[in-house]
């Protein structure tokens, strides 16, 4: 199949590229990249009118829910949601049933991912740190890695035991792989449903204090310094955690972190609605924390934007706030929120945005870097930064619609993606 993209603006921050060009793709390979390529026979032509061609975006924190919770999401619907949102790859978290704690689950997920949606979206499983994510015995990390796991996490639950965390860091470092920590000191968060502060007090809700995150990040950084192993903080949400990562980086420690779009957009004020789509873990924090996320993104402390895409069925969220599960879907609003909140406000340049959605997560996961050049495999996300649109959760490709952003007006969206010889156009 031949695809000709006319009038694109190719931006690849890895080599400083920012050029206007046409791109001719033949059977998934970039055959030609220069201005004014003539459309030959049997060529599918798309005029991009100056839209941005970037290396394919990856969301390194996604819950695909398969196996075990297919009523919320499947590999098929989750990867379609990813493509629609502008991603060519996702990492799926291991809180499935069974958990991703043995090689066969890793293989099954990878096989299935290649079969659905013509294999458009690459799926990189994240293996569990401990067996059944119970926080007790280490999962077989060498075996998981050999089967294709790209990092390890017990996400949804922290690795609480300090000895276990130390051993996990040491063990994964043999492979030069990261432990991704859901940083939460659980003894401080029992029963909690929202951020502790003025809003939780006004609503009489059981609190989750910000220090629960800070304390776990601080402990982990202490371990990292001692054992010199790579560590990545999932979904940072507190000013304190960002500051801890900043000072760890200043010391030269191998610490990285990610933030979700909802944590740089919303505050705990949103919970006043009692809308269960404002219930997530970590919870929405304060205005000061949101500002700290933006500053962390701006100064490079926060390496990655990842969504923590957490689908739940309609019925599961149509309950009392107290009883609703934590989490929201994120794949289809991430790029829109990032442009609206970060790029159009001058916090990030387009290049920096691309780094956080594509370059940095691939570096952290030790995935091969994407090159947009003649002779290379095409793995691109095409962005329309000025496209104005209104979020309609009913139109989501995800099986679940649990998003607090329904009705939000955003500026910026993915036009489409090309990967593994397939083009998907969402606009």
């Amino acid at each position, binding site marked *: 199949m031949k695809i000709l993209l006319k009038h694109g603006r190719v931006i690849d921050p890895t080599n400083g590229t920012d050029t206007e060009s046409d791109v001719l793709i033949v059977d998934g390979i970039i055959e030609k990249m220069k201005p004014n390529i003539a459309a030959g026979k049997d060529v599918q032509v798309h005029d991009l009118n100056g839209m941005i061609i970037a290396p394919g975006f990856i969301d390194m924190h996604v819950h695909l829910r398969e196996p075990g919770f297919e009523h919320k999401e499947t590999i098929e619907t989750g990867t379609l949601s990813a493509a629609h949102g502008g991603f060519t790859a996702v990492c799926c978290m291991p809180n499935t049933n069974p958990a991703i704690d043995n090689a066969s689950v890793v293989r099954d997920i990878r096989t299935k991912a290649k079969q659905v949606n013509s294999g458009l979206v690459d799926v990189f499983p994240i293996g569990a740190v401990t067996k059944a994510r119970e926080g007790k015995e280490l999962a077989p990390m060498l075996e998981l890695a050999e089967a294709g796991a790209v990092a390890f996490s017990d996400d949804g639950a922290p690795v609480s035991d300090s000895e276990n965390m130390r051993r996990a860091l040491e063990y994964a470092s043999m492979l030069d792989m990261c432990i991704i920590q859901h940083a939460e000191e659980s003894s401080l968060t*029992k029963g909690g449903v929202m951020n*502790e*502060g*003025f809003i*939780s*007090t*006004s*609503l*009489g*809700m*059981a*609190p989750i204090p910000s220090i629960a995150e800070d304390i776990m990040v601080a402990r982990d950084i202490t371990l990292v310094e001692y054992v010199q192993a790579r560590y990545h903080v999932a979904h940072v949400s507190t000013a304190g955690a960002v500051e801890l990562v900043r000072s760890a980086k200043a010391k030269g420690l191998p610490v990285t972190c990610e933030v979700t779009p909802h944590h740089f957009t919303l505050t705990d004020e949103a919970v006043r609605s*009692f809308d269960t789509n404002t219930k997530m873990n970590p919870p929405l924090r304060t205005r000061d924390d949101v500002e700290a996320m933006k500053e962390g993104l701006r100064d490079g402390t926060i390496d990655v934007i990842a969504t923590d895409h957490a689908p739940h069925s309609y*019925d599961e969220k*149509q*309950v*009392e*706030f*107290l*009883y609703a599960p934590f989490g929201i879907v994120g794949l289809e609003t991430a790029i829109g929120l990032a442009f609206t909140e970060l790029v159009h406000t001058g916090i990030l340049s387009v290049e920096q945005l691309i780094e956080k959605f594509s370059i940095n997560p691939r570096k952290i996961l030790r995935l091969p870097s994407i090159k947009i050049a003649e002779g290379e495999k095409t793995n691109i996300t095409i962005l329309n930064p000025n496209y104005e649109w209104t979020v309609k959760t009913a139109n989501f490709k995800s099986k679940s619609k649990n998003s607090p952003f329904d009705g939000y007006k955003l500026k910026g969206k993915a036009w489409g993606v090309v990967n593994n010889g397939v083009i998907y156009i969402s606009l």
Partner: protein
Amino acid sequence: MPLSSRHLLGLEDVPKEDINLLLDTTTNFREVLERPVKKVPTLQGQTIVNLFLEDSTRTRVSFELAERRLSADVVNFSASVSSLKKGETLKDTVRNLEAMKIDMVVIRHAAQGSPHFLTKIMDAHIINAGDGSHEHPTQALLDMYTIREKFGTLEGVHVCIVGDISHSRVALSNIFGLKTMGATVSVCGPKTLIPKEIEKLGVNVFYDINRAIREADVLNVLRIQLERQDRAYFPSLREYREYFAVTKERLKQAQKEITILHPGPINRDVELSADVADSDASLILHQVLNGVAVRMAVLYLLGTGK
């Protein structure tokens, strides 16, 4: 002039005019309660469900009495007999109720915001009879009515709420309502039972009960839930009693009259000594009587749109 909302979900953001209307209407129903025949036909033909998904006999009885005295048809739906135990969701339950043509729902539930949730899934008027540790607006209204009855006004009266503020449904409603009416509000208790940033609601915080007694005109003493010890909110009941209980000796030292309220049920000689509970300073039984009248006022104003 009707109330500005068709529900009573809490007292946060309820305007002063509404609270005055509710309290003035309560006075009318207090008169009804003094009559030989304590019944009026006001809500004849209206059906009210008391949806009590958490035990609270006192509040339910008070609402039921108020409803019957307004001649409403009353259905009691409580957790012990409810299908919720069989895994039916709250949404399914209220959808079923609504199909039976219900005009008002009085809901008591352990989950904060559940009355607000009901307003999104059904058309009936919703009255919050306590949602977890969030609000309990009719309790606060009856407390305010009782204080107003005694002092003639709420403006400038200093009310101190004593005890477990964090887990109370009474504290927040009282704070919201009293602040709106111009009262001075403070809270007193062990720091572990006072939620963060509560000062931002415009209340003073005391950790010394003697100081609270010196400064306040009214003490609204909350029930200490004995199970709170389990999670180390305080070391022991003995220590709580020693340092936070409202006792006759402490009140004597204040050398002024202090009015005592308690939402009940009392742990005698824990948060409140028996001699204080039964003294002239205690308005606890007035609260119970006023509770019926306040609930009649709420039901009447919402049910008739007046």
